[in-house]
């Protein structure tokens, strides 16, 4: 981090303006971004037009194509957080890049779980007549949400970057253990939430081929979106950290000047 740029410390005036690149985009992200947009359009087409309405649920079943992909991508992002945290902790180098990946991934994971909660409760309103049920899966999902809000709170505790990285890596590695709990909560409890209706074809949503394919499109679309967002966010975080280091140069110059003034 200190090797960014051999800028002399005695020119504070241009601190913070010289950044290696002004945008967080690269060719790779552009391609992924376009792919994500295309997949989204495709998803809209399939979800709203091509796939059929459900026998039991009617048109509201179309919420499935957001509901399930978002939570799966959220799982994915928390797993990525855990893996990146692990790599950060267990490699000798303790590279902050992994820490930033973990942080960025968790931020979008929280956003996606939030989306699941919102869409799920709207759906619940349509099918169950209420926004919320004390159902095992819903409860555990809410817990997952809170646990990662806690993770983000730990990241904001302050201290040096390495300190932030260490603390949050531990929390990130342990919080991922909640995912199996969420996933198997339906088995653990006697629950009214949908049991695994995709893996085995029982349950009250009969998955026909189009529906399955639409779901697949949804998963692809949201995954691409996730990758695109995380790539941008990690770069932005790198720049934030870098700016902070620049800020340090300025502050150092000020501090030394204060001494000279005496």
């Amino acid at each position, binding site marked *: 981090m200190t090797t960014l740029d051999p800028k002399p410390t005695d020119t504070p005036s241009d601190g913070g303006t010289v950044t290696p690149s002004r945008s967080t985009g690269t060719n790779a992200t552009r391609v992924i971004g376009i792919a994500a947009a295309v997949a989204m359009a495709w998803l809209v087409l399939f979800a709203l037009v091509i796939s059929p309405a459900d026998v039991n649920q009617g048109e509201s079943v179309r919420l499935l194509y957001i509901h399930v992909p978002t939570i799966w991508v959220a799982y994915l992002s928390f797993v990525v957080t855990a893996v990146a945290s692990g790599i950060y902790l267990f490699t000798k180098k303790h590279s902050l890049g992994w820490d930033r990946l973990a942080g960025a991934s968790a931020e979008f994971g929280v956003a996606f779980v939030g989306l699941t909660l919102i869409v799920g*409760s709207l759906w619940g309103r349509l099918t169950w007549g209420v926004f919320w049920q004390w*159902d095992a899966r819903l*409860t555990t999902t809410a817990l997952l949400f809170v646990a990662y809000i806690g993770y983000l*709170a730990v990241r904001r505790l302050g201290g040096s970057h390495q300190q932030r990285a260490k603390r949050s890596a531990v929390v990130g590695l342990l919080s991922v253990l909640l995912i199996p709990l969420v996933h198997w909560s339906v088995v653990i409890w006697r629950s009214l939430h949908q049991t695994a209706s995709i893996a085995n074809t029982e349950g009250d949503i009969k998955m026909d081929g189009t529906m399955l394919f639409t779901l697949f499109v949804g998963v692809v679309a949201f995954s691409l979106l996730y990758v695109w967002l995380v790539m941008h966010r990690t770069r932005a975080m790198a720049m934030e950290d870098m700016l902070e280091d620049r800020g340090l140069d300025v502050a150092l110059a000020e501090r030394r000047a204060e001494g000279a003034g005496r």
Partner: protein
Amino acid sequence: MSTWRVGWLIARKDLRIEWRSRVITNQVLPFAFVTMVIFGIALDANTDVLELVAPGLVWLATMFSLLLLVQRAFSVEADDGALDAMRVAGVDARGIFLGKAIGLVVQLLVLEVLLLCAAMVLYGETIRLDGVVLLVTTMVSATCGLAAVGTLYGGLAAGSKGRETLLPLLTLPAVAPVLIGATRAVESALGTGVAELSEGWQWVSLLTVFAVVFGVGGALAFGPLIDE
């Protein structure tokens, strides 16, 4: 320096400290939220039971949050001997009580509104229009009562060692009447169970009496309590 002016100075300072540290939004609120979810787990996702006790749970979560808020409000004073400094400066004890209580009321009200919104979603509550007045009155009077009790015992426990644990011990039993009254009043306001609106107003008067008793009693007792 009049009691009111001292109260205003202190409340402003407290709210400013809270605003700086954002403890409510960043931590107390999520805590209250987790508490409610955890209740859901402990009650075994028994939906019928939950719906029945939802208003109770909101107030229970409020009370746990009250404990956190009071503890913080007084650890701010005790950490570096500020409470002693106030006593030496001869700051009017009633003013201190008033100021700390006002600070708590504001924070609690913010919290309750948010919790109530959460409860409406989580527990499937709906608000009747004619219940709104009752609801608001209940919240205000219950909150004043809670803040008065919290301030009184917070001041008593402040500075004594083991205050983290002395505070709940004193506060929880004392606010039990508020818990019951507010729960019933909210039930009437929301129309849960068989409760009537008029019944709710009876509970509100109980809450008001409670708030007045603890408010006046607290203001009078606060000086001797924190002194010596």
